[in-house]
């Protein structure tokens, strides 16, 4: 018979083996200690996520700077501003030539650079949102009051 299991003890009563179940009384503070350990783990995961999103926000801003400079140069070198000015200065005439002005605006738009800039802006905003969300949330797994 195993002597290490405290819940079960073999006893001999009247020379007949009897299996007795002895109830276990756990530490009354074990529940609180369990809750504290779980909360601590959740907090550590939350902090790791905040740092990760902060780093991604920083990287996206750092990458956005040269892309934004390139985008401004591309817009300055293109004829987009001149074509767009026609839309505001000669609206009635432009309406009758809407196909030509639309094609001119589409051709002169620096699409690739603009798409890269928009992707980086979206990445920065998403990282910022996630960072604020995880830093503002205090995850409590369990509490005695619940």
């Amino acid at each position, binding site marked *: 018979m195993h002597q290490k299991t405290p819940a079960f003890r073999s006893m001999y009563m009247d020379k007949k083996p009897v299996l007795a179940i002895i109830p276990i009384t756990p530490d009354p503070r074990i529940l609180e200690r369990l809750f504290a350990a779980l909360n601590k783990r959740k907090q550590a995961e939350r902090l790791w996520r905040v740092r990760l999103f902060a780093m991604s926000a920083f990287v996206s801003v750092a990458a956005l700077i040269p892309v934004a400079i390139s985008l401004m140069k591309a817009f*300055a*070198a*293109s*004829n987009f501003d*001149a*074509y767009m*000015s*026609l839309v505001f*200065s*000669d609206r009635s*005439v*432009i309406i009758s*030539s809407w196909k*030509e*002005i639309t*094609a*001119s605006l*589409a*051709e*002169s738009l620096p*699409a690739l650079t603009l798409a890269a800039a928009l992707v980086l802006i979206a990445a920065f905003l998403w990282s910022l949102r996630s960072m604020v969300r995880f830093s503002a949330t205090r995850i409590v797994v369990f509490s005695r009051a619940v």
Partner: protein
Amino acid sequence: MKTSDFFQSHTFKIVLISIVGLVLLLAGFSIGEHIGFRKASFAFHGGVMQAENFSDAHGTVGKVLTVTLPAVTIADRDGTEKTILIGPQTIIRRMRDTLASTDIQAGDYIVAIGDPNAQSQIAARFIRELPPPSVSTAPQASQ
């Protein structure tokens, strides 16, 4: 699973968003393909194939080099020379005034939009004379 539950499920939303995204992607690709073909065709016929970028096919902004009506040669901002054709339907304006084709002179700074033809010329529908730009933004005419 009930039908109403399916339409409100997360899977259905993902499928719907994926379809919409794919449609937008294909539409953008198709538009880009169409515009790229027009620009490449314009550059090919005009003999100004560049490695970096094709010039605009439906408009030009720059300084007037020569005026040989109905053709006007313009030095675009990207350095290419383009020819625009002024026809009876072409509207020419300076500030609030409407001009005649003979009012355009060499050295004027204009913006023109129109339709490209097979000879890589732009049949202008509208021309506006602009104030001369600053020195930093002045077009570099090809030599």
